[in-house]
């Protein structure tokens, strides 16, 4: 009977107060400024991107920037899902369904990225297969934001011929 009564009750839904929506929106805007800010600050702390460098991969600061950006984006996504999409006060089953799909997304990312993220652990030359090409083209690539044209790197001319790229 309880089940039946529950089904027959009037369709009353939780109405979120206006101030909650406005506060969540304010939080989302602040977090957007935060993610832009961390990118500008961490970007200014390190030399400009150097595609013709030694091919050493992301610097520590760039990895930190990626981690911060993803953390901030996930907090923003959580705010949108819990408040704008009514997961906090709505049916718990919808939340369970979402978490279930995110579980499979994690498997998807995890199993796929095992390969590219562990390249070069046994054979360092595999880590950055483009590095010799990058050195060569570095002389010709001009960074769009930089005022001075990039100086040709002496290392580019010292490359053994067998590493010359076929572009």
């Amino acid at each position, binding site marked *: 009977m309880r089940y039946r009564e529950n089904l027959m009750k009037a369709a009353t839904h939780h109405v*979120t107060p206006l101030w909650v929506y406005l506060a969540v929106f304010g939080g989302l805007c602040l977090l957007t400024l935060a*993610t*832009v800010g961390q990118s*500008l600050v961490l970007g200014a702390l390190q030399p400009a*991107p150097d595609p013709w460098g030694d*091919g050493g991969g992301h610097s520590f600061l760039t990895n930190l920037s990626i981690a911060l950006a993803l953390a901030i984006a996930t907090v923003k996504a959580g705010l949108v899902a819990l408040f704008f999409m009514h997961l906090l006060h709505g049916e718990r089953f919808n939340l369970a369904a979402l978490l279930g799909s995110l579980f499979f997304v994690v498997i*998807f*990312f995890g199993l796929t990225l095992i390969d590219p993220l562990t390249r070069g652990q046994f054979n360092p030359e595999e880590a950055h297969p483009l590095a010799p090409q990058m050195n060569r083209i570095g002389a010709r690539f001009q960074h769009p934001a930089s005022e001075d044209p990039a100086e040709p790197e002496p290392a580019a001319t010292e490359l053994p011929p067998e590493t010359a790229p076929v572009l």
Partner: protein
Amino acid sequence: MSQPLATISGRPAPPLAHHFESMKQQHDSAVLGMWVFLLTEILLFSGLFVGYAVYRALHPEVFQAASQLLDWRMGMLNTFVLLTSSLTMALAVRAAQLGRHRQLALLLASTLALAGVFLVVKYFEYSHKLHRGIAPGFWFSPHGAEAAGLADLPYARNFFSIYFVMTALHGIHVLIGMAAIGWLLARARRQDFGGEYYYPVECVGLYWHLVDLVWIYLFPLLYLID
């Protein structure tokens, strides 16, 4: 089983489909169905994000250099536009719950207008790139002072293919969302929605927030690489 004769603003409430026990059950079923659809959307975009992650892990320097061609100011502007449209959409659902018809129509129209602003900004970004020959895949032939170096950057083509496919698929979702919001707007002007019956507004709202969610991840991952 007789249902009380509910009215919304003097108009008869929409009929309860015979296979549902109550308006609440009908509402919850529709919302759950929308969520299941959104989960498939999440998995669709996950595939693209995984592709992004694989290429970035293999060619980090290329992503850093190529993304300098994207203007983060435009991306930030569009982020604020989409966040505001998400707010107006959430408030529209609230107005529908409370049976405020004029407010609902106004908020839906605002959401529609903000979606239009988003697409206009996107148009300027796309044309800026296409004029410099920065196009996806086969059509990638950068030229001009700003972009010439890209032609020699291996895998820059891949970065911009990923950029165009992800933002274009997102843009298509914006267009579909605009069509759905336009349909809601027409129904809102007929005063179709009220506290008992507003699940169409709720479901379109959920879709619109998902479009916002995808952009929340796209913006830092494409524009803020440093």
